[in-house]
């Protein structure tokens, strides 16, 4: 999976909030095989390095940190948070969220495009949390985003892929862009489905953090993401309108063109 200039072998990215404890978070990261985790700066930093101890615990796992602008409701807030994140974490990566609706946490696509343009000009490498809207995706790419992260469904809803058609269309429109399904993943089959559609990766958080056994669930997601990717690369059989025999059938009566086997 390519994120700007870096290639990663794991296609699963994890959020770090709401685990029962940092220790369980650490174990879950290891069990997931994730090489990238996201960290929210908005509530933890408060203008100083107040969350340093928690971040150090995450860094000890050796994963790469992708700071996000979760909880930002305006362009200005998101840009300021990204700038702070660059300073604190020493990375140009930013998972850019501009929230447009406080209830569904749906992205504000207009603000997102604007913030992407500003941050790209400042040298940031933007991973944009967006919807499956193709026009918005075009604008984000024009604005400089090289990684798009369409939602599966609203953040934390665990509803899976709400619009498979839209996600498939997005993959088809941007065959060479890194596309990662972010948000709404509830169970491993959701993640496998996203990978089967040809997505480069999956980012999820509460599906693991709030599971009864986060470490076991992290492993389940690791396996499902690997399975989905393998299936995609293996060129899966697509649904057909007719049954078809898997071996030629000789010596059997064929009635009305249908074959029984």
């Amino acid at each position, binding site marked *: 999976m390519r994120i700007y200039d870096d290639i990663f072998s794991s296609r699963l990215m994890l959020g770090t909030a709401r685990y*029962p*404890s*940092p*220790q*369980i978070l*650490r174990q879950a990261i290891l069990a997931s095989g994730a090489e990238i985790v996201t960290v929210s700066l908005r*509530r*933890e*930093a*408060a203008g*100083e390095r*107040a*969350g*340093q*101890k*928690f971040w150090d*615990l995450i860094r000890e796992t050796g994963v790469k940190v992708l700071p996000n602008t979760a909880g930002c409701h305006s362009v200005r807030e998101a840009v300021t948070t990204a700038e702070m994140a660059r300073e604190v974490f020493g990375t140009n990566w930013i998972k850019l969220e501009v929230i447009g609706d406080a209830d569904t946490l749906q992205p504000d696509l207009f603000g997102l495009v604007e913030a992407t343009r500003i941050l790209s000009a400042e040298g940031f490498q933007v991973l944009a949390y967006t919807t499956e809207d193709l026009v918005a995706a075009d604008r984000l790419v024009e604005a400089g985003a090289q990684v798009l992260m369409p939602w599966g469904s609203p953040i*934390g809803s665990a509803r899976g892929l709400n619009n498979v058609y839209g996600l498939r269309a997005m993959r088809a429109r941007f065959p060479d862009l890194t596309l990662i399904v972010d948000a709404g993943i509830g169970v491993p089959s959701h993640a496998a489905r996203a990978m089967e559609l040809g997505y480069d990766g999956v980012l999820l958080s509460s599906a693991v953090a709030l599971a*009864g056994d986060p470490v076991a669930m992290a492993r389940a997601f690791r396996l499902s993401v690997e399975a989905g990717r393998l299936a995609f690369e293996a060129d899966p059989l697509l649904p057909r309108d007719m049954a078809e025999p898997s071996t030629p059938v000789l010596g059997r009566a064929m009635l009305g063109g249908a074959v029984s086997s």
Partner: protein
Amino acid sequence: MKVTVIGAGVAGLSAALTLAERGAAVTLYERSESLGDAAASFLAGGMLAPFCEAESADASIVAPGLAAIDWWADRVPGVMRNGTLVVAPVRDAGEIARFGRRTSSAQSLDAAGVDALEPDLAGRFWQGLHFPAEAHLDPRIALGALADRMRALGGTIHFGSNVQPEAAMGDTVIDCRGFVGDDSELRSVRGEMLILRTHEIHLARPVRLLHPRMPVYVVPRAGGLFMVGATMIESAASGGPTLRAAVELMNAAYALHPAFAEAEVLEMKAGRRPAFPDNLPRVTRSGRIVSVNGLYRHGFLLAPDCAAKAADLAFGAQPREEIAA
């Protein structure tokens, strides 16, 4: 035996009293000028809710947490054994089932069951969970009562005394200072809380309102007071509550009952909970210094158990099987 305890939060006061009860001559030093000024436990909810806490905490907290209810009831006034009520907004009713699966000892309630327990919530929730074995207390009354009992057993408390463990007198020094140590594993989990006053509604027990993003609780206290808490933020920032936290806590209280809209806001504060990576407390000895730290959000729940372990170490006994460490 002479013992010095440093830090008069819930950990230090519990340890001091436990040692005094076992016959030690105890001197307690506290850097702040009066009880609770600098203690996270002064801002606590005072819920003695081991089953509810085990929803996200390690199961090892349940046994010492249950024992703590008796420990407090034997020593301080106002321990209410009315259980805990757990409810969720109608839209998030699925959270009740999830909470029930992750916990034990709950009774499922329908709308009539919720109404019977808390008549002032009648008609507001269609289902809930009741944890009848749980209890709650008023932390400020409880800490004061511990101090009184410890003095009655011959102990002394010195406020405004910034004593270092290495320089302290005594056969054993119990270090209950929380953040002043330099333990690299200890971190701060910030919590923000409100105290409201209204006589329009009455609750007999703590009510936890489940919400996918922001679970909160409302704990009733004497005199129409309600403690609303608490945020959980990975931050060492020591300033006052953020507007966001205040709004979320107020919204939650309002969601529980609209009458809270008319409540008087008496207090809005933020504290820092010391926590280790597994969010469980540690009682350790190094020479004559015994450290009690990392009580996280379980100060009142686990301080009695930590105090017993600290006293065991002070008296040279082998510590009991480490339940919480």
